[in-house]
């Protein structure tokens, strides 16, 4: 069809003839003309983000190195403070537990989405997307009620060796975070799994491989990009979680985001908060760059806008 159309266009005289040689232009491009005017479309969004997002971020990074005095004092203070290590360790451990738990929950779920019929798939997708978009505060509040002492999940506390509820404990925080972050795991997994050619497994089983061998030698390796990007995404988001640990956890077991918040709220210590922010940002950026090297499945969430 494209050939037919461009063939017809090539026959037309005048400007159309040379246009046919170049890649097709969108109508918008034709309305706007050259590249200079494309920039006009981008400028409002870019300006908005530069002024009200990128500049404030850059300023906080700047303050980390200059407030109250120039140098790396804020970072050496952080390193000298024994709580820093504990907070970082707790945050990394919680994020890891959350990432692994969501992976275990989500992998079979995403797999079922790829093999089931379209109606069931739509239901499963809706179950993932609705919480993705519904009120975070409502969900945190729900977890407060569920996890509190005497709440419906109170008996879960005994699993973790506690009599009372799980509210104010690390496992309670992790449970709440798992629910909030599950969609971020399911979507990249599903996006990668739906691209796997299942005839490969048929071929393997035809050649005598058992179901487990098929899974281990073929399906699992092919789904690894989804596993890696989903796990990294959840891990990164968990590192910066603020609301859930603050509401479900306790100040005694703060995570990084809470410490950053407290430094600003209670002490107006923008330099110290900035230094911790720089560490968090650097870790986030490093992980995201690593994962984008490994896989492009982040596109499932639009995190790396794909070139066509």
């Amino acid at each position, binding site marked *: 069809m494209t050939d037919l159309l461009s063939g017809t266009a090539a026959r037309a005289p005048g400007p159309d003839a040379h246009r046919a040689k170049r890649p097709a232009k969108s109508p918008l491009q034709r309305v706007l003309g050259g590249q200079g005017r*494309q920039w006009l479309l981008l400028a409002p969004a870019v300006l908005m*983000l530069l002024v009200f997002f990128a500049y404030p971020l850059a300023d906080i990074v700047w303050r980390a190195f200059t407030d109250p005095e120039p140098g790396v004092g804020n970072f050496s203070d952080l390193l000298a403070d024994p709580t820093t290590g504990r907070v970082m360790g707790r945050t990394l451990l919680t994020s890891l537990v959350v990432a692994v738990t969501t992976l275990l929950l989500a992998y079979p*779920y995403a797999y079922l989405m790829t093999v089931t019929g379209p109606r069931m798939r739509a239901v499963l997708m809706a179950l993932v997307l609705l919480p993705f978009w*519904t009120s975070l505060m*409502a969900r945190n509040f729900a977890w407060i009620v569920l996890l509190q002492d005497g709440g419906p999940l109170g008996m879960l506390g005994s699993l973790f060796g506690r009599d009372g509820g799980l509210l104010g404990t690390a496992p309670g925080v992790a449970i709440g975070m798992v629910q909030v972050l599950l969609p971020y795991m399911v979507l990249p997994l599903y996006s990668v799994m739906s691209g796997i050619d299942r005839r490969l*497994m048929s071929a393997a089983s035809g050649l005598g491989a058992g179901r487990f061998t098929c899974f281990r030698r073929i399906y699992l390796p092919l789904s690894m990009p989804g596993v890696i990007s989903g796990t990294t995404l959840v891990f990164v988001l968990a590192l910066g979680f603020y609301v859930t640990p603050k509401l479900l956890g306790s100040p005694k077991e703060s995570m990084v985001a809470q410490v950053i918040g407290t430094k600003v709220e209670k002490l107006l210590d923008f330099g110290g*908060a900035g230094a911790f922010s720089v560490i968090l940002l650097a870790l986030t950026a490093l992980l995201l760059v690593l994962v984008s090297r490994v896989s492009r499945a982040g596109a499932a969430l639009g995190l790396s806008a794909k070139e066509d």
Partner: protein
Amino acid sequence: MENHQFRGGIGLRLWAAMVGAVLVAPTLIVIPLSFTGKRSFTFPPEEWSLQWYRNFFSNPLWRDSLLTSLQIALAVAVLATVLGTLAAMALDRGRIPGKGLIQGLLMAPMVVPQIVAAIAVYAAFLNWGLSGTLVGFVVAHTALAVPFVVVAVSTSLRGYDRGLDRAAAMLGAGPFTTFRRVTAPLIAPGVLSGAVFAFVTSLDEVVIAFYLQSPTLHTLPVTMFSSVTVETDPTIAAASSIVLVATTALILLPQLLRRSKREGKS
């Protein structure tokens, strides 16, 4: 391609049902909780009443924060949709120098930890006198919402068949007519879902709003946040239920509208 060996077995289905329940069920308890007759968060409630809904709509603390939130979210939806749609269209075809960098900038608000963004915005907006103002909330939320619009509109544009443009042109339509009669209606569902996502992003955002609030101006999620941290007020259950039902309805709206068209949701 239908191979029985690899279709979901009963174990897989049970697992998925459990995960589905984990995803959705916990949130739903706020609905029965909102009809409790007592001033407590006991679940299941022992008495029933509508008093918390009455309180939500009559108590100025709750009512005003709802109105503030709606005002901000509406402004954010309009602003982010315009900015994001224009940017997505420019990125779609334009050979723009530094395209990767611009895409990175446009997506950054999705991955920068919220607390870092919040204290950054707080510090800058204090200096600019934007802290505690409607304008401050709107611009901060718009920055967060733009990526969702860009993604939604880009998805629409990616599935867009450019042959249609050529066909329209051959049938004698000028560029503007082609855009108005062919392109715009086809990408409209993407633009609409972008607008809904922007609206919901703002309506739900709590961390930045927490830092930008003033004693007289705060959004609904911030009021909910303070209400859980400082007191046991079941009005938050009513507030949660209302927000839950309203956002669910809003999110389903574009899905229903675009059901006719095959569409990859992001």
